[in-house]
């Protein structure tokens, strides 16, 4: 198990990457030049309809999850039993359920609650986009709350006391003193979570939102119907490439922040 020098592996990495590019780029260029007539409209649909929907959902879910998660995670550090139990239950529940089940619960079960539990007013069914966003916020905020709890608890007691001595109230103390310090520990997992949220928006396609993957799927079904041959492989790989291009820089950023900040 003697460690090989890093340099050799760096050279091999660069060579392998260059070889991949040298083969891949001409091949992709050739593929693009000889693309069939259906490709352009399908690509337009995937990018301008699907990707837009995916990014919109990811942005709303990300902001919602961050706001709710930071609040709950900070509130958890108050030594008051009832709130602690409630927040712990919230975290365990929404982290423990698969996101599909959460989204199904909101989309299929929530509007039917009035049939099951008496005195609950009839709730008109949510649109698929809203239901999926709420589901992602519930899951994401539970993740953020758990991370925040750890980060806030890692700030030393003296910081609280010093802030209190300066005349900050509970809210001011946390907003101006504790959370900015906790942010150092919080930022890397938050970036990682954003990547997860972006990827998990595809699950919303199961209740019929028009996200990237679902648009590509519908296109491939339509093409199978119209042209008689399936183009699923190309379209799914295309969608995976889109996600990779978005996610890879973010995961690198998360790794870099982890190294720099902690």
């Amino acid at each position, binding site marked *: *198990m*003697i*460690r*090989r020098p*890093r340099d*050799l*592996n760096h050279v*091999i*990495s660069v060579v*392998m990457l260059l070889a991949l590019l040298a083969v891949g780029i001409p091949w992709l260029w050739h593929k693009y030049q000889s693309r069939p007539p259906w490709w352009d409209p399908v690509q337009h649909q995937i990018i301008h309809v699907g990707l837009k929907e995916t990014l919109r959902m990811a942005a709303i879910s990300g902001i919602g999850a961050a706001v709710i998660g930071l609040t709950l995670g900070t509130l958890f550090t108050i030594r008051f039993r009832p709130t602690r139990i409630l927040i712990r239950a919230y975290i*365990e*529940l929404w982290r*423990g*359920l*698969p*996101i*599909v*089940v959460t989204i*199904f*619960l909101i989309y*299929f*079960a929530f509007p*039917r*609650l009035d*049939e*099951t*539990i*008496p005195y609950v007013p009839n709730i008109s069914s949510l649109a698929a986009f809203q239901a999926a966003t709420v589901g992602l916020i519930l899951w994401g905020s539970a993740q953020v709350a758990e991370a925040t709890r750890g980060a806030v608890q890692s700030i030393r007691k003296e910081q609280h006391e010093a802030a209190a001595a300066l005349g900050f109230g509970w809210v001011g103390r946390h907003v101006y003193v504790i959370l900015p310090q906790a942010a150092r520990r919080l930022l890397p997992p938050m970036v990682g979570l954003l*990547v997860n949220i972006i*990827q*998990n928006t*595809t*699950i919303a*396609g*199961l209740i019929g939102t028009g996200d990237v*993957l679902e648009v590509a*799927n519908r296109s*491939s079904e339509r093409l199978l119907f119209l042209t008689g041959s*399936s183009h*699923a*492989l190309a379209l*799914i*790989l295309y*969608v*995976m490439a889109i*996600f*990779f291009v978005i*996610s*890879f820089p973010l*995961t690198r950023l998360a790794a870099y922040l982890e190294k720099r900040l902690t």
Partner: protein
Amino acid sequence: MSLLASFDWATIWDNRRLLSDGVWRTIQVSAIGIVGATVIGIALGAVRANRIPVLTQLAAAYVEVIRNTPILAQIYLIFYGLPLLSQHLAFTGFTTAWLAVTIWGGAFNTENFRAGFEAVPFRFREAGLALGFSRLATFFRVTLPLGGRIALPSTTNTYVSVMKNTSLMTAIGFQELTGTSRSISASNFRDVEMLTTVGVTYLVLAWSISGGMRLLERRLSFEDAR
């Protein structure tokens, strides 16, 4: 009047056969996925930690591709994409299910085990080699037992996620727990009862996995560290 007056417990009881079949399929797929992910994770984690040329770059590429693309797209790729390449790659729902979660969990476990193996102090491995163990023997007798213990808590998260991700097989029509419950409520409109049952079952499964892993951790921990 009780709060859950019209919660139809009988629906759950009437469909106990279908539901337990669904749970069983979820457990089967999860079990294969967990074992497979462990094997891939240990093998590729060792490759990454020892920086074995060429293999380590390939392992890194595998990990990055899996981590940076949605698992649902990976499932679709296996189920709808691969049969276009060759007829032999046309898999059933069950095969697709365990294959997808194994590949997915393997990538995450590679990172878990890599971190664990790298945390084993170099002098321990040096001592193994000095005692005359071969490189492979040093790995199995020194790095794996020590690094595996360090990696255990983070693999727990991956295993729970592997189990939760089996629920996505609903998308390809594989009748695991979630898919079964959707089929049932498609005919009786008892969405609330079905999804509640499913949700509780997943929570129980997730807690069983993390509880079991915690037991394993405690069993494996060294006497003086206990």
